[in-house]
């Protein structure tokens, strides 16, 4: 005879979603998402979204891009990370429009769009934050639009003048994109340096630090020419140790974060993330930017925990990776769910069943002090 447990949280979540759907007069759709439910634990779990409201689109996500530095820091819960479990990681992907809400910025069902998608098979998102994907651009490139916006924002904030020499600390995808964009912006020479590469002191006008390593800031400052600038585009994880004595040259350390995009005024223009993303995709499509380097690793969503454990350890290094939602059966990826009843009663697993049987046997025996 099998025994079961009742998932109260599932029941509550089901009820709340339907209450929201009733208030908003929208349907409910079910999909799958990568979820960090507890610190260090990641699982693929079912979840629900509402159909799109005014200005929104519902997207069936095909590929979602991994941001290795950010997601490794979130999974490892490094200093500076404020997001706490439970959360769904990811912020960049590509997919097809399933449904559109009223006033959804000219998108139609079937359109291929890129946007700030989490690692999940469905996403309801504001159309104003999404980008149409040029026909000639493959999904595997368009999925990285979120990282492209970060790189563009960083280069824009650096204010590279024609002919300036640029050093990029960090050879990952963001570093490579930053280097390419610095060249497009007019830099006279761009150098990429990894952790073990030697860097000459006072050798660059602009130094981008994309490492996320608090100790690298010292390296960046030493590499900047007097009155040069360090652009802190990677999130440093922890406090910087004491700087070397004599590091007294005047230096500017300019912080850059994606949440400040839309605040950079260049001339009279303020660049929004939507405009940055459109520009990035356009340059990718025409070949002005290329995603070079080793091939992309595609991850099956149900192997997400194994992937994050590997990402957390940092070995082997993850450079470019995509969750491939097309590998899920259609019924799991996306289905109508308004009238679905929740699965709240589930059988005990083998461990739970063994413990339950032991407890029952002891109950029938005597307790401490009895006979």
């Amino acid at each position, binding site marked *: 005879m099998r025994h079961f447990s009742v998932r109260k949280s599932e029941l509550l979540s089901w009820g709340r979603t339907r209450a929201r759907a009733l208030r908003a007069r929208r349907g409910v759709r079910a999909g799958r998402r990568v979820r960090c439910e507890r*610190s*260090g634990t990641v699982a693929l779990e079912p979840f629900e979204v509402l159909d799109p409201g005014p200005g929104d689109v519902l997207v069936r996500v095909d590929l979602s891009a991994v941001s290795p530095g950010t997601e490794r820091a979130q999974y*490892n819960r490094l200093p500076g990370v404020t997001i706490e479990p439970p959360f769904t990681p990811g912020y960049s992907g590509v997919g097809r429009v399933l449904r559109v809400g009223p006033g959804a910025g000219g998108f139609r069902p079937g359109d291929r769009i890129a946007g700030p998608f989490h690692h999940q098979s469905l996403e309801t998102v504001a159309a104003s934050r999404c980008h149409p994907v040029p026909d000639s651009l493959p999904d595997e490139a368009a999925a990285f639009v979120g990282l492209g916006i970060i790189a563009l924002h960083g280069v824009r904030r650096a204010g590279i003048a024609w002919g300036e020499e640029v050093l990029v600390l960090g050879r990952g995808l963001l570093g490579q994109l930053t280097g390419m964009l610095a060249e497009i912006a007019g830099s006279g020479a761009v150098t990429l340096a990894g952790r073990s590469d030697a860097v000459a002191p006072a050798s660059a006008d602009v130094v981008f630090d994309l490492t996320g390593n608090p100790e690298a800031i010292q390296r960046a400052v030493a590499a900047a020419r007097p009155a040069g600038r360090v652009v802190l585009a990677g999130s440093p994880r922890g406090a910087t140790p004491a700087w070397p004595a004599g590091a007294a040259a005047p230096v500017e350390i300019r912080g850059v974060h994606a949440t400040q995009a839309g605040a950079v005024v260049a001339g009279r223009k303020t660049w929004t993330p939507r405009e940055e993303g459109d520009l990035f995709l356009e340059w990718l499509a025409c070949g002005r930017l290329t995603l070079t380097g080793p091939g992309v690793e595609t991850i099956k969503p149900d192997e997400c925990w194994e992937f994050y454990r590997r990402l*957390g350890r940092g070995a082997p290094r993850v450079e470019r990776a995509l969750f491939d939602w097309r590998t899920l059966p259609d019924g799991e990826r996306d289905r109508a769910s308004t009238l679905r009843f929740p699965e709240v009663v589930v059988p005990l697993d083998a461990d739970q069943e063994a413990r339950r049987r*032991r407890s029952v046997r*002891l109950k029938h025996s005597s307790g401490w002090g009895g006979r």
Partner: protein
Amino acid sequence: MSGPGPAAPGGVGFAIAGCGEIALRNARAIAASGAGTLRWAIDPNRSLAEDLARRHGARAGEALSQALEDPAVHVILIASPHDLHATLALEALHAGRHAIVEKPLARTAEEARRMIAAARERRVSVAAFYALRHYPETEAARALFVEGTLGDLHSGSISEHFSKEMPYWFGGSSGRSRSSWRAWRERSGGGVLIMNLCHHLDRLLHLTGRRVERVSCETARRAVPGDVEDVAAMVLRLEGGAVIAVDASTSAPGGGDARIALRAEHGQIALDPPPRFLALRRNPHGATNRWCALPTGDEVSARGAFISAFVSEMSQPSPGLPQGLADALHVQEILDAAYASAESGRPVDLPAREDSDARTPARA
């Protein structure tokens, strides 16, 4: 620096040095014990100190010296990273305060001996906070051994495997205090052996009253972003010939239930949930020839009981080494031997009991 003032009954003043996750539980235990009040929360990270202080109406500080200047502080509870245990304990003991040190007592037996010597010189008490001793199932299991119900100990198995993922190594289980000290031997003294198995070693000594004579150990590092071990397996030979197999790891996906069993001539004890015993002889605690439940309790009560017992003992110092402290020192000796064995690939013998009166025999 001023010494402590006299403590009114129930008015013993505590200071906690190190306000990470375990400090929260210790502060609740101090309140639950009724033996005293938390007066200071000390941590170089001021926000952690202020958070703990706010929860318990205490004062916050960044250096232990601030608490030692307050004559209303009598006991320092040290819950810092392991490399600071000796430094902070010695500072407290030299200032005439009693000290409770979170497990393990120190990184090595040599550090532990220095702390014990300082306490004896200043005539104050020091203890290692091995709370498992005060769980109801431990006390009940010990009674079975002491009374002789189970007979001579033959063998034992201690097995515990955790899923300590990367976030643990950068900030502990809760992430309250983000530091990678646990991953580096210089700071922590080691990995799963000293961090987790020390609890079980202490409880083994407490239950059986037997010293460990020989240690054979193998360790490995598989998934730690540092230099400590995350896999360990030991075989211990106890006085009287019992053999205990111990294994643990922190890199087991999904973790697993602990398995803790001690097998004796006339029965056995299992301390994994639900704790239980089986005795072939009649006894006042349960039926013969079948598994019976041991009483259970919660962590805060157990920690509170430890604190109450410490406060009682500290005001009535004994001439010899208190049993708990002798066991805590022996745990350090076992750990030193285990690491030495893992490094050399050979079993390590431990010195015989120096003072046969220092331990209470386990059997009546």
